[in-house]
């Protein structure tokens, strides 16, 4: 067992060693993201090794990790490492597409880390704040 490839939200356990190579594909990798152009369509697959996949926190983290919903910049940060937060509490304010958005805790927890600073620009899916269980 090696890991999982996620395509359109579907995780596929990968333990096969033999690749099926189609001649008309173009493949490129950016970290754990693999892009494939196949028969006129582009697909994005995300690699996650089995250990990380099962230990989390990744996307299936039960709301512990707050990721950037779209590219933007940090306007304000409302919490610091060690703060206790309740569901609905503001974590940080971001600006994207000229709109300010408040990102809120989706569960109770303690702030484990804030990985951005005010004014910092980020891209989509960047981890902004991570919580841990109380």
């Amino acid at each position: 067992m090696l890991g999982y490839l996620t395509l359109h939200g579907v995780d596929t356990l990968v333990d096969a060693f033999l690749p099926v190579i189609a001649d008309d594909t173009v493949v490129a990798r950016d970290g754990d993201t693999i892009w494939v152009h196949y028969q006129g369509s582009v697909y994005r697959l995300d690699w996650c090794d089995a250990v990380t996949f099962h230990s989390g926190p990744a996307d299936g983290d039960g709301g512990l990790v707050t990721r950037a919903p779209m590219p933007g910049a940090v306007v304000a940060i409302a919490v610091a490492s060690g703060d206790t937060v309740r569901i609905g509490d503001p974590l940080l304010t971001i600006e994207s597409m000229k709109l300010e958005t408040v990102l809120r805790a989706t569960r109770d927890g303690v702030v484990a880390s804030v990985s951005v600073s005010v004014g910092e620009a980020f891209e989509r899916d960047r981890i902004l704040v991570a919580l841990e269980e109380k």
Partner: protein
Amino acid sequence: MIASVLVANRGEIAARVLRTVRRLGLRGLLVAHPVDGHTPAMDLADDLRMIEGETPVAAFLDGNQIIAAALEMGAAAIHPGYGFLSENAGFARQVVDAGLIWIGPSPETIELMGDKVRARSFVAQHGFPVAPSAIEDDDPGSFAARAAAVGFPLLIKPSAGGGGKGMRIVRDAALLEREIATARSEGLRYFGDGRLFVERYIDQPRHIEVQILGDGVDVIHLHERECSLQRRFQKVVEEAPSVGLDETERARICRVAVGIASACKYRNAGTVEFIYGDGEFYFLEMNTRLQVEHPVTEMVTGIDLVEEQLAIANGIRLRVTQDEIRCIGHAIEARIYAEDPSRDFAPTTGPVLAFSSRSNARLDAGISLNGRVHAAFDPMIAKLVVHADDRPSALAAMDLALAELVLLGVQTNIGFLRRLLSDPDVAGGRMHTGFIGDAPNLAEEPHVETGVRDILIGRALAVIPDVQEARARVPALHAAMGAWRN
């Protein structure tokens, strides 16, 4: 005669203007912002100055800095492209005051057409069609009665408004007074201004525009374009000619566009935009610059619009007559946006890991291989343009060109464009400006068949370092196990 041109723009349009400048044997000059990295326009420029600003966009809006760069590089003229300072009358004046040639219309024309209410009354005064309307400020006491006289359905808009906020469609005369009251309170809440105006509302309209060229005396048209496929009020696909007009209407709309441009003694390439529906068309606005979708007109007429802009700026009278303009075949342009259609077309970013076009379609691109798409500017990164004998052939050519455009590393709308253009209503020419919004299913990621999934996974595995390492260990493992087997 202009010997060197500074392009005060970026992305695909900077490269597109420089291509013509070079073909004509002139010096091409460029300003650029560091956030863009290495761009296609840089490969075409003879000289270059980096510009800075509080934000990257602010750098391209800093007229003083751009003019200083132009003078330093010895530019004779400035081409503004589209967006940024292209419709800024103050900048046009500054350019001229600095002793440079402005490749655009007079500042007075830019001001007239830039003020939407003034432009509208100018057009109406000259006897051309604008949507029937009533403006509260003209006589507040009779506003409701004048609004009802406009006819239904009508659209109530806040005078101070924008972005669709506070707009209300009224289909029933009995509801008019109540809707006016609601719109007024919304106007107050959003804009601190409760003044209103109403306009006749056209259901499911088409967006049709006419390309014109004027030398300050004569004006000719280069036929129309249809740009009805839009998302969030931005064009996505444009074509020439329009599939929605018959010959009589086509002649009429082109004649009106020439009339409007002649009335303001227009001097430059320009576009008169109309809303068309129920057999009628109304003036929407006039854009006093080159437009994003100008290539479809170039394809069907064989005329390089940037070359004509340069000739006009040189003071040369129009080099073609109306009779010499032919519209041959059918052209379609698809705008490639870095965006995620399934997330309400939200912009995306990422590295350009692969970028190649295997078809012979015209590709006007603002990105290069190994560059990066970032969030600092507009998400339009390239345009694909095809030309064929007729519309069905052009649609087929576009589908092939989109399929053979390989762009990896950043999510784009390429797959969405293929689904959109193969929709039976689009193929049949039954389009309106709300079409994309009304068809959310086209924006969804299609289901991936199991067979395709297996191929994708197999191909992806070949580039994952973890997998490669594991594979490298396997032969040794098998060798060690050899004695134990069987």
